[in-house]
């Protein structure tokens, strides 16, 4: 579903990511793990066609992000780190706007709004103004926006950041319930979140992949935290 080959991104002289390659099969949930500034968002932004890579290739659902970007964009749902919400709009009309933007027909949009509102537990907030919603609900609206066109691939950048434990568990449950028919990549730097939702983790550090394995094999002999610190922390000391 997702094939990434030797993806590299430089911002001027500064390295964003370097030589990242991985594959994600259909229906997998993959956790993208790494400390802040390690290149998670950069990778996701390239996959979602927000910006091009300096070199390397990425294909989503068989389409190249650079040459067939419109096809890719039609097939992905993306929740950026800051949910892209218009504060003055009401939830339902915002979702309608997103649906139309993603290419849904007018009558189809109405149907999909009902569906995603139900999926994301937004029934009671449907007619409220987005600017007045709590952080947890804003995150749900962001997720609903990513789901509106029923995409095959979901890319979620830190979907649970800044939420309280209850909201956190809610969103996690929601993401889990979406798995199965969809391929999901989610990034986070909160370790327990990965163990609770993902089947596979890719650990990225200073722009490079330092581990890519199924969760069980990584946590067989040690906790995920130990594994993570080993991969990330020790290397930092060496370079430091």
């Amino acid at each position, binding site marked *: 579903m997702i094939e990434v080959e030797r993806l590299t991104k430089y911002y001027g002289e500064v390295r964003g990511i370097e030589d990242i390659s991985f594959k994600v099969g259909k229906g997998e949930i993959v956790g993208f793990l790494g400390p802040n500034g390690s290149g998670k968002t950069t990778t996701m932004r390239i996959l979602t*066609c*927000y*910006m091009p890579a300096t070199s390397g290739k990425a294909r989503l659902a068989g389409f190249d992000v650079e040459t067939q970007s419109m096809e890719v*964009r039609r097939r992905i749902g993306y929740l*950026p780190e*800051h949910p892209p919400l218009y*504060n003055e709009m009401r939830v339902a009309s915002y979702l309608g706007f997103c649906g139309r*933007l993603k290419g849904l027909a007018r009558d189809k949009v109405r149907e999909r709004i009902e569906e995603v509102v139900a999926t994301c537990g937004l029934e009671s907030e449907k007619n409220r103004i987005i600017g007045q919603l709590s952080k947890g609900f804003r995150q749900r609206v962001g997720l609903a926006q990513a789901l509106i066109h029923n995409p095959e691939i979901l890319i979620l950048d830190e979907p649970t950041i800044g939420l309280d434990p209850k909201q956190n568990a809610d969103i996690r449950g929601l993401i889990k319930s979406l798995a199965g028919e969809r391929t999901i990549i989610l990034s986070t730097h909160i370790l327990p979140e990965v163990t609770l939702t993902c089947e596979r983790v890719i650990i990225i550090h200073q722009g490079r992949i330092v581990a890519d394995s199924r969760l069980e094999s990584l946590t067989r002999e040690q906790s995920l935290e130990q594994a993570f610190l080993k991969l990330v922390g020790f290397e930092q000391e060496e370079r430091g």
Partner: protein
Amino acid sequence: MRAVGTIFWKEFKSYFVSPVGYVVLTGFTALSGFLFYQLLGFFIRITSLMRGYMVRGQVMREWTLADDVMGPLYKNLGLFLIVMVPAVTMRLFAEEKKLKTEELLLTSPVRMSEIVIGKYLASLSLLFLMLLPVGVYLLIVFIYGTEPDMGTLLAGYAGLFLVTFSLAAIGVFSSTLTENQIVSFFVCAVLGLFFFTIGLAGSSVQTITLFSRKLNIGDFLQQLSLSGHYDNFVSGRIELTDIVYFVSIILFFLAAARISAESPRRS
């Protein structure tokens, strides 16, 4: 084209969710109405005193509604636009950058040109509504005036729309440059002033010598000036060059806006 409509409606509605739409509409109507009232009052007073512009007891030029009421009105409204148009356009892209909603637009299956056109048309629609009351003044002149030159008056009105639409294109471009709406406002206002006043430089800078060649830059500057082409409309001369000028300004700045709005892709 679907995306153009989607963007258009969202932007147009948002003018009336915030105070911007109401402030611009009432502000422009009140100010232009006051100006029209003043000019008309002056016209009535002066026509009761003498028939025209007099030199040594001889009438050099008769007072007309076109030259002495609507002409000055149009020219002054042109200056109002330098404040009104940026107020309408400053939000368009700057806010998307600030609220990071730009990420939604750039990752949707929509071309940047569709987004620019949708936003441009939304601002045009509000500005169109803003200029409608000026039609009422035209109507007053038409109904109560004695033989007003309606051709000239309508040409001036058309010119007012074209100036507004050109400034709006400049405003859309300015809005793509920054995430700060105030900066966007001033960039548009300064560019607008530049295009209004550049013609004045034309008469003082006649020719320059570049690589031992004489270039008539004065003529060039005068052709570049918004006010020069606008004055032609106000005085009732509609020429193809003027129309081409306004269309070129609009297309140039919209194209620049499209390129500038895609800047995240080039970072």
